[in-house]
């Protein structure tokens, strides 16, 4: 079966694809991938095929399980939402369906997005198709996994708060685009940290990501933080060339702690950019060292309020009612949340408490404002900033087990600042080391997705 989206679209146009047969074949293949790598929490056995026209007509789409799908179980990767079937579609899903996209399943993630490797998974961690002993990266691990493993045309709707698209894209050798905050409506996204959550795409090629992102983008009256900025057809930027562009490499992003093999793969790609006519210089983002701690303060503060609603009253997990409401809520939450969710609720509640609020939560907000300024001034000098996507190659599950929470949080160092600033970034695969993929990320100014696609596509192919 053809895996290229462009070729698949062509085949559909030529009438070479019988939709029902095609979809049942795709679902069979999903089952096979599932038994090998576990990318899904739910496979949608009876997808809606009624809408057969549109920009995504006949294209299988997977959806990260933190994004609501009408009539299909949505768990956010947590036991506390097991069996929950939303009564509505997230706006991005509705947009994809309107354009003929076929929802084939819901992909695995760290519970509520709380993780860097997709190992905090209540329904099992997805395995890396490049080496099943290794993790896919998180939190959109299932999206990266199925995109890499699919032997059929497919694009994944993913989501990032602090790097959850770039990490799995880098570790699974796929393309991941994290758009500008507000570019895609968050309506229907189960919140992690609302001020930083962004719905994006993981695809096999830059074109695929550009196509699905174009369909999902745009103002949505249901999300007050969605932007009214017009979105053009992002696929038109693919292959436009980068002659004369200027790129900066923040020196803080290529440090002694970055894996040497990652650095060498990255540098080879930089040469490729120079050959294509770009000018590359070193630059500096001195505030990077404050990014991880302030990111986690904001994220957990928001997350701890977002998770308050899960208490076994209206949806999701329920328990036998004994005692007063506090006893009942505690019982449900103790049983329903995993370890990392509990950790973030406790830390987040602490960071918001009177007496600590000023020193932690409010201070972190001020740091964010400064980080945004720092990026903005860089984009006066450069068309984009480039860096390795992740500081390491995809780690083994056994290695991850040994990491402390702080060590894990520090793995986000290369993705946190741009995610906090709400600027877009695109991660593209740039070769392998020891058979494992390496990713390069391109960070651009707010709403500069088109330019990122232009740059990213110049690194594709030989």
């Amino acid at each position: 079966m053809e895996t290229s989206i462009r070729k698949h679209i062509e085949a559909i146009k030529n009438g070479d694809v019988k939709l029902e047969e095609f979809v049942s074949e795709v679902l069979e293949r999903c089952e096979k991938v599932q038994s090998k790598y576990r990318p899904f929490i739910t496979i949608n056995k009876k997808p809606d095929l009624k809408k057969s026209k549109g920009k995504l007509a006949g294209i299988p789409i997977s959806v990260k399980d933190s994004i609501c799908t009408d009539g299909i179980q949505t768990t956010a990767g947590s036991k506390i939402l097991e069996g929950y079937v939303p009564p509505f579609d997230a706006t991005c899903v509705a947009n994809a369906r309107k354009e003929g996209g076929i929802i084939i399943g819901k992909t695995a993630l760290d519970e509520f997005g709380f993780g860097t490797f997709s190992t905090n998974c209540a329904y099992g961690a997805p395995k890396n198709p490049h080496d099943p002993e290794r993790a896919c990266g998180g939190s959109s691990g299932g999206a990266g996994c199925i995109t890499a493993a699919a032997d059929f045309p497919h694009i994944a709707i993913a989501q990032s708060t602090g790097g959850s698209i770039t990490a799995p894209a880098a570790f699974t050798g796929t393309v991941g685009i994290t758009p500008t905050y507000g570019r895609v409506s968050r309506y229907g996204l189960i919140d992690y940290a609302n001020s930083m959550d962004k719905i994006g795409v993981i695809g096999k090629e830059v074109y695929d990501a550009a196509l699905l992102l174009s369909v999902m983008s745009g103002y949505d009256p249901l999300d007050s933080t969605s932007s009214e900025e017009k979105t053009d057809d992002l696929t038109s930027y693919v292959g436009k060339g980068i002659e004369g562009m200027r790129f900066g490499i923040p020196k803080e992003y290529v440090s002694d702690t970055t894996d040497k093999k990652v650095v060498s793969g990255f540098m080879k790609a930089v040469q490729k950019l120079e050959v294509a006519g770009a000018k590359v210089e070193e630059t500096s983002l001195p505030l990077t060292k404050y990014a991880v701690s302030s990111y986690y303060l904001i994220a957990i503060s928001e997350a701890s309020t977002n998770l308050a609603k899960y208490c076994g009253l209206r949806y999701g997990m329920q328990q036998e009612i004994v005692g007063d409401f506090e006893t009942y809520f505690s019982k449900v939450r103790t049983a329903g949340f995993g370890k990392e969710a509990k950790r973030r609720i406790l830390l987040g509640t602490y960071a918001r408490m009177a007496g600590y609020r000023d020193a932690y939560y409010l201070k972190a907000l001020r740091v964010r404002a400064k980080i945004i300024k720092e990026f903005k001034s860089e984009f006066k000098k450069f068309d984009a900033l480039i860096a390795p996507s992740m500081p390491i190659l995809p780690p083994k599950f056994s290695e991850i087990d040994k990491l402390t929470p702080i060590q894990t949080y520090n793995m986000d160092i290369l993705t946190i600042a741009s995610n906090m600033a709400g600027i877009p970034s695109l991660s593209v695969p740039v070769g392998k080391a020891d058979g494992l993929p390496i990713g390069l990320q391109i960070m651009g100014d707010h709403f500069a997705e088109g330019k990122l696609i232009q740059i990213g596509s110049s690194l594709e192919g030989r």
Partner: protein
Amino acid sequence: MMEPEVMIGIEAHVQLNTKSKMFCSDMSEPGDAEPNSNTCPICLGFPGSKPKVNAKAVEHGAMIGLALNSRINEKMFFSRKAYFYPDLSKNYQITQYEIPLASGGFMQLGETKIRIRRVHIEEDPAKLVHDSGEITSANKVLIDYNRAGVPLAEIVTEPDFKNPRQVRQFMEHLSSVLEYLGVYDPKREMSLRVDANISINGGERVEIKNITGFENVEKALSYEVVRQSGITRMGAKVERETRHFNAEVKTTSALRKKEYEEDYGYIFDPDLPMITLTRKFVDSLKANMPELPEQRAARLVKDYKISDYYANVIIYTGKPMADFYEACLKLENKPEPIASWLVNYLLKSLNWRSERIEDSKVKPETFVELIRMIEKGEVTERYAKELMKQYVDTGTSPKKLAAKEKFALSESDMLKIVREIISKNGKAVSEFKSGKGEALQFLIGLVLKETKKQADPKTIKGIIEKEIR
């Protein structure tokens, strides 16, 4: 015994009468809707749903701020107030914390100035229905989310009240202001609720939660003054706690101890970006502010020369009453007698029936008939009062009522009777002509007897004097 020094501050919660809820498009006034039928994923806090600010509620809130002489803040945020309680669908309430919609301000109550600390807008929680009817004894609770998300304005005062009576007066004035602004529906149950903080002689403050009804506010606080005074007289200390007012027995009872300041872990609601209330927006609200009750009371005194007392009673009974008064004046320009009959008798009859003017059968056209009859002396004051009761009960035109019941005599009837009496009592007439006052009283008495006291002595006196001279 020395009067205790009382200090009271209140938080008044007003349900704004917008069409839709604060953050979603469900109806704001579900009426008798089936429990939990007027809900959607947003007000039920379903995963993935997001709030959306109701602009009308912001406008209403800003109008309240302006009416209370507050400053409208240019930049406005919403925050999450986090605490676990079954009436909160998200286990946090979207409210305003650091920067409220409006800050500062005051309300003048005669000589007393009550300072306003802030006015902010937020969402109403769901309604909890306790199976035994009382929060303190129920062992099961039902939740009705129809009310969840109804827009509320919270008005917080400084602790400037010196007695429960002032609080009641404040609430009556506030209710009137809100009614004039057209931002709330006084007939809606629970549309105006009060949390009151009260301390005596500088002791710990006690919070009484969720009192509805102005009389209840005064009763609850008066009960607290007595209770707290009792405790201090015994040499004990008042404990810091939250209490509940039981409207049935008019007492308060302890809900929970407050050993420390509650910590709600406020954060900015990241789903709701900052809202800028421009100068233009505030100016246009100011330009379109309706006449407020205080201004209207002053105008009634100035234009119609009625007493402050009458003007205040008419105004603070409610807007429909003031509208009624002015409608009557358009038909019959007699401000003083109309005000007097309205305040002294009409209101009493309405109160007796527990009726509001707008729901009653009383109409300006028929009410002024009564005033005209009184003014012309066609009915005595005593009969007019009786007539008033019947009129309020039935709504029948007082003229018709009087004709039916023979409450009134026409002028020609009266003249006929007087002439007959004069012709039959020549002696008394001549005594009167020679200056004997008692003779006139005698004649008046005879007429009264003849008319079965349906005529007014003053009117009779006038007619007799005219006839004899």
